[in-house]
């Protein structure tokens, strides 16, 4: 027992005996131009109402107001400015060596909403801001913090010139801001990142593996003894294991093809190793600048053993990105294709239906389209359209001739099968008004039309594998809505319009 205790004690001592000294790039060097650091307050804005934020700006000596300058945002800014981590000194040295471009550093602290009396606690917002998976914090950076700094300095808007850095839960905040806005940020430094089950960050590895890669470069660091002690080698914390989850994050990034690096040291949940490796981490993150960070297919994709099942690159190609067709419209809804490769879409705000040919050329197909939103090409080649405001479904021929298909149906969306069965999706708010008289819900069309409703049925949404809308129900969406089904038949067959057994 004594021996075990000695071994455990020794292990503990060894775990913390690792020395992470600051190298010369973290020491002030004579002859190196020094940047300036000034502190500001960002007044409360719309994303964190009532909550001011303090921040500091590092401006390199090489700053040229005539040039858009790269920018790096540090969450928990004070920790990175501290004498222990010394990012401004590292910046001075690396910029002087041209290992980094001149970078403006923004060191933002988490917000604190002051208490209304000394009998209550301040509202400390760090976890809410950093550990949430939504895009609020990224919007705070982009719409409030960066514009405030941009009033003082000429900041680049190029995502390739923008980096984020965080520690612990702040590393999650930095990663999430880039993950949510890869159109705005391309570089992330993550120290002792909290990718454990606090507010959902433990789910990130699966999300990273499944999601089409984004143009991000990510450096991760953690220590083998981060929340690990000899008596609890699986982790001391209720939310998971830091080193294991950092490893899993890294493997997910590798698997998806990211430019990622993990440095796993021997330390704990502290900034010893991060401070020591800061110069190297910054060099790695900004290497090759100003070459753009772009998405690559995973290296394993061309190698034996690659399993194509479920992979995004079994569906899309990295060299075939989205392309815009046409210009900007009030709103684009209901795209649907025909046999000839044309695509119809509606602009309900302009009351129009447009047609895009296979080359992307757009022509106006129908004006005054009565609020058409949902569109589907039917098996007969006609274009079916729902006019919910007029409670009807119509169809158009190639020349735009209109036929009324159904009345008294307020469909937001619909699907058509090869047998011309329609599945309608209507708002649940209408349910109570119609549920007692469902037999009258759909009626035959007027005599002038060639088609009528033979029958229909309405049902509450239940799992149903037979229709696309049923599958939505199965997966938990449209719970509050209902589907209606009706079938159109040609009047020439002599069929009467009557209720169909449902």
């Amino acid at each position: 027992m004594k021996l075990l205790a000695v071994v455990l004690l020794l292990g503990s001592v060894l775990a913390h005996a690792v020395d992470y000294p600051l190298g010369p790039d973290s020491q002030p060097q004579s002859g190196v131009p020094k940047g300036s650091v000034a502190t500001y307050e960002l007044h409360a804005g719309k994303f964190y109402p009532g909550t001011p934020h303090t921040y500091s700006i590092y401006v390199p000596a090489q700053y040229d107001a005539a040039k858009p300058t790269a920018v790096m945002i540090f969450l928990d800014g004070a920790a990175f400015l501290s004498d222990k981590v010394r990012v401004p000194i590292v910046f001075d040295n690396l910029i002087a060596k041209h290992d980094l471009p001149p970078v403006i550093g923004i060191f933002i602290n988490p917000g604190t909403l002051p208490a209304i009396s000394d009998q209550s606690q301040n509202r400390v917002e760090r976890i809410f801001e950093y550990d949430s998976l939504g895009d609020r914090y990224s919007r705070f950076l982009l719409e409030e913090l960066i514009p405030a700094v941009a009033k003082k300095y000429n900041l680049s808007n190029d995502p390739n010139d923008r980096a984020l850095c965080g520690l612990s839960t702040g590393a999650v905040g930095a990663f999430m801001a880039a993950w949510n806005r890869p159109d705005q940020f391309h570089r992330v430094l993550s120290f002792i990142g909290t990718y454990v089950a606090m507010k959902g960050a433990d789910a990130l590895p699966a999300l990273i593996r499944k999601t089409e890669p984004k143009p991000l470069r990510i450096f991760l660091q953690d220590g083998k003894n981060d929340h690990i002690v000899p008596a609890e080698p699986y982790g001391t914390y209720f939310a998971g294991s830091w080193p294991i989850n950092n490893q899993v994050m890294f493997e997910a990034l590798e698997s998806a093809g990211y430019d990622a690096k993990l440095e796993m040291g021997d330390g704990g949940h502290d900034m010893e190793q991060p401070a020591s490796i800061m110069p190297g981490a910054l060099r790695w993150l900004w290497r090759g600048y100003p070459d753009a960070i772009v998405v690559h297919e995973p290296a394993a994709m061309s190698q034996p053993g690659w399993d194509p099942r479920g992979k995004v690159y079994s569906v899309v190609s990295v060299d075939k990105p989205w392309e815009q067709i046409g210009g900007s419209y009030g709103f684009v809804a209901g795209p649907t294709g025909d046999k000839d490769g044309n695509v119809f879409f509606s602009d309900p705000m302009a009351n129009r239906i447009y047609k895009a040919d296979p080359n992307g050329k757009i022509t106006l197909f129908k004006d005054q389209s009565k609020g058409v939103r949902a569109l589907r090409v039917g098996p007969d080649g006609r274009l079916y359209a729902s006019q919910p405001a007029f409670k009807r479904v119509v169809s158009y021929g190639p020349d735009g001739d209109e036929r009324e298909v159904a009345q008294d149906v307020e469909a937001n969306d619909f699907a058509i099968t090869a047998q011309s069965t329609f599945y309608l999706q209507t708002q649940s708010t209408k349910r109570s008004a119609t549920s007692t008289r469902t037999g009258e819900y759909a009626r035959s069309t007027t005599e002038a039309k060639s088609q009528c409703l033979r029958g229909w049925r309405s049902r509450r949404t239940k799992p149903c594998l037979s229709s696309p809308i049923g599958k939505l129900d199965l997966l938990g969406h449209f719970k509050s809505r209902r589907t209606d089904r009706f079938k159109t038949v040609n009047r020439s067959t002599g069929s009467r319009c009557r209720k169909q057994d449902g």
Partner: protein
Amino acid sequence: MSGVQGVMEDSAGQVFFATPLGIQFCEANGRVAGILNPPEYGNIGGLAFAGKNLNWLYVAEGGKLFRRSVKVAGVAVDAPTKPPKPPL
């Protein structure tokens, strides 16, 4: 999966959902396999397979229409084919 704005099926029985996360596609057995990024920051509205070979994916996002060449194909409404047995 929440916030679904549109749904489409491909010839392998995979189902594509337009969601705030992007276009989530499920294997025919219902498992989410992959998630395609939207054309730009924002929410995708409708989506459709189109083109003569149904191998273009069109999406509506706000006031814009986008398309992307894909390695899968949609299902013709007038000539649907039986999808393969779902994977285990």
